């Protein structure tokens, strides 16, 4: 076996066509990994700079405040989801969902859906990251490396002679294909491993990711092997394989996506905002009790301090901000549930498409999938709740304003 592998490796070294695809694979992998690392670094730098500017801006805003309400109104707080140590390989949903916000104690629904816009053209085309390379491009390269193993020998009229002398067809084609698949996998993975070492990715994740990619390549190898048993010319084989690739990599995901989205309608996001804003705006004209009653239902501990005597009081103002969130809450959880349902079904549908499966698996490992982004939004919600828990006792129990107390403002915990 070793002898035949060595022989095939020598053949490969002389096959200029095959070498071209392999070098291309290596070059693309290097590019994908370095683009990824550069992007992740830039995002980390952005976050680091934002943390500083955010603190300075808050200090600046709080300097001139004279009451709790003003402090809560003018002090913004940065929330963010830092890229994981594997995000360089799969940027995933970080390109379409926001991963940084600045929130304050006003109604959260008015703030959390703000998308920190990126160039729209970018979101349209997508990025060249390793997940895309491994999921979509690598199978094409594998097809191009393997499709004419048999057919080229047939064209050269050596096929039958080779098969006859090799003993079993197995010992003939297996080493030849194995050498090519191994070379392709290694050339794709080596840059990934270097990237993982640079980024400090955990061993488990690197090994899992490599396993996923190798598994997908083996699956595509099987497909190529089955198709190329058909006794047809190389170009017919290649055409059929490209057709299969299109079906599995593009058509199947597109059809599943359309089906899933039709089956799981998400509430119109605009409705959430509309409802929340209407509630907040209407509160100004309603009797104060109409706001304080649903508020106290959520915060019974503040019931004794929820009497509004003046025309304008901060605690009433923040109470109707919260009531705005409360009113929109059913729609919000519907929106969230629909996103999760879509994602779960997309996970099932991905079983029909190896490219979707690989890309989703990479996003899962990199914490850049839809669930991770929803997880980040949940963290923002928890932090916002902490802000309310911090200010409410101060406002409602009418504690005298003391700027030093604000030093104990809750900190956002990116991992919490």
């Amino acid at each position, binding site marked *: 076996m070793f002898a035949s592998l060595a022989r095939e490796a020598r053949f490969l070294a002389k096959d200029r066509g095959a070498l071209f695809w392999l070098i291309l694979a290596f070059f693309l992998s290097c590019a994908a990994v370095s683009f990824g690392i550069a992007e992740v670094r830039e995002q980390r730098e952005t976050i680091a700079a934002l943390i500083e500017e955010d603190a300075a*801006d808050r200090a*600046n805003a709080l300097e001139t405040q004279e009451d709790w309400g003003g402090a809560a109104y003018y002090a913004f707080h940065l929330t963010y989801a830092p890229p994981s140590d594997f995000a360089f390989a799969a940027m995933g949903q970080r390109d379409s969902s926001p991963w940084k916000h600045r929130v304050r104690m006003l109604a959260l629904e008015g703030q959390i859906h703000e998308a920190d816009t990126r160039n729209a053209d970018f*979101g349209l085309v997508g990025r*060249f990251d390793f997940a895309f390379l491994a999921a979509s491009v690598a199978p094409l390269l594998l097809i191009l490396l393997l499709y004419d193993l048999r057919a080229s020998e047939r064209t050269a009229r050596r096929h039958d002679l080779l098969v006859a002398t090799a003993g079993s067809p197995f010992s003939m084609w297996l080493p030849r294909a194995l050498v090519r698949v191994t070379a392709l996998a290694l050339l794709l993975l080596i840059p990934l491993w270097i990237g993982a070492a640079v980024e400090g990715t955990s061993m488990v994740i690197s090994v899992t990711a490599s396993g996923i990619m190798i598994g997908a390549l083996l699956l595509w190898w099987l497909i190529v092997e089955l198709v190329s048993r058909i006794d047809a010319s190389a170009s017919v084989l290649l055409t059929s394989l490209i057709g299969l690739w299109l079906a599995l990599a593009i*058509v199947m995901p597109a059809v*599943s996506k359309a089906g899933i989205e039709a089956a799981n309608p998400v509430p119109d996001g605009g409705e959430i905002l509309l409802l929340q804003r209407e509630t907040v705006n209407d509160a100004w004209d309603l009797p104060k009790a109409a706001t304080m009653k649903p508020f106290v239902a959520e915060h019974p501990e503040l019931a004794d301090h929820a009497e509004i005597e003046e*025309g304008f009081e901060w605690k009433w103002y923040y109470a109707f901000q919260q009531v705005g969130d409360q009113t929109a809450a059913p729609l919000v959880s519907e929106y969230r549930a629909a996103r999760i349902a879509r994602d779960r079904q997309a996970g099932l549908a991905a079983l029909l498409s190896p490219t979707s499966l690989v890309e989703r698996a990479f996003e899962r490992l990199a914490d850049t999938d839809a669930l991770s982004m929803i997880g980040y939004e949940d963290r923002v919600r928890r932090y916002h709740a902490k802000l309310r828990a911090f200010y409410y006792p101060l406002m409602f129990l009418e504690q005298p304003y003391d700027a030093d107390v604000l030093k104990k403002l809750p900190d956002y915990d990116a991992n919490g």
Partner: protein
Amino acid sequence: MSSVRRIAREEWRLWLRSKVVVAAALIVAVLIAVTSILTANRIANEQAQRVEQQVAAEQTFFAQPDRHPHRMVHYGHYAFRPPPPLAVFEPGVDAVTGQSIFLEGHRQNTAMFADTKAAADLGGFAALTPASLYQLFLPLLLIVLGHALFLRERESGTLAVILAQGLPGTKLALGKAAALLAVIAMFMLPLIAVAAYSVTLGERMLAAFSLVGGYFVYLCAWGAIVLAASVLLTQRAVSLGVLIFVWLFAALIVPRFAINASSAAVDAPGKIESDLIMLAEQRKLGDGHNAADPAFMQLQAEVLEQYDVETIEELPINWRGVVAAYSEAELTDLLNSYAEERMRLEASQSRIFGLFGLLSPTIAVSSASRAIAGTDLATHHRFLRESEALRFGFVQALNEKHAAELDYAIDMNRNADEAARLRARVNASAWQVLDEFRFAPDGADERLGRAGGSLGILLAWLLAAGGIVLVAARRVRL
């Protein structure tokens, strides 16, 4: 001429006998038909829905009861962007940007709820549109059909006979090109139908025609590339491999590389980053809610002098409304300067991206197609600018009402008790200041002008590939 036609007809006869070719062509045709119908349906729904939402938002605004005018500034309004007629073919950036904006005083919000945020995630290129089929699939079909177009004669030994009969290589190539051209013309029919449909939806003939023309040039350029490979190379498997590589490069790799490269070349900071810098400047401008803010001292002196009175109480207009209008104007200048800077950076990123069309005709055609359809970044920016003008318009009109129709003393006393609050209102008829907003993309000439560069690049691709075919065919020997 008849020999060219005979060669082309012979080619078609061979294609029709090949199951692979017929199957591939049928599948692509069905995909185009289904996607076109689904997309047209979806866009027609969205169009109707957004126009309805826009009208509904205006009516709700008008229907608000008597209120303090500043309350209406915060009540706000919505701007919706209905898809343009040609979006039935090329939905463009709509799915990524979100199509509605909430407009309120003192803030420029971003467009919200992009479809992609809640989309089912199936990886790379999950959404199929008629445009993406034309950009990605049809070149592949041309490759499958045409990779052996010329070299077939060489492989089967008929090339020698044909040349010996005195038919020049160029004529043979011309015949093959005519065969491929007929395929392209056939596949232009669905696009022509969609374009004609968009004209019935109100699109200008010029734009519809240019879109068809742009894709025709694009497909012809691919046809020429395919033909060139089949003239220059001598084995069909090699020719197919090389062409697949060219496709992989042009359709999948370069566009994504170009995204990475243009975002690395021009650093466009996110909104949070620029907002942070802006907030510091904004604080210096003073808070328009607080008419006693020292930032307004100079304004106060000027206004008092203008009306020749000593104190703000003596002014014939409401000082708080004056401050609100003044600070809104100052703030809007500041917001706009940041917004313009951000849009400028994004536009230059997209320009760099467009230049990669020199490496990939797919980039050139997709840029041209978005620009002509009115679903490109520039149209999104136009929407942002126009909705901002709408915002500033109604906020300032309300501030004027605040200054002119609400007495200062009553306004200052508004929080005293319920009766005082009710006195500090203006009649709801004042809400009629809101302008009607119906977003429409640029005129056809302007969109075409934006697409000019990309269309030029496409034409250059066609000329270059056609030139190579011509030179190679002239030199063809055995």
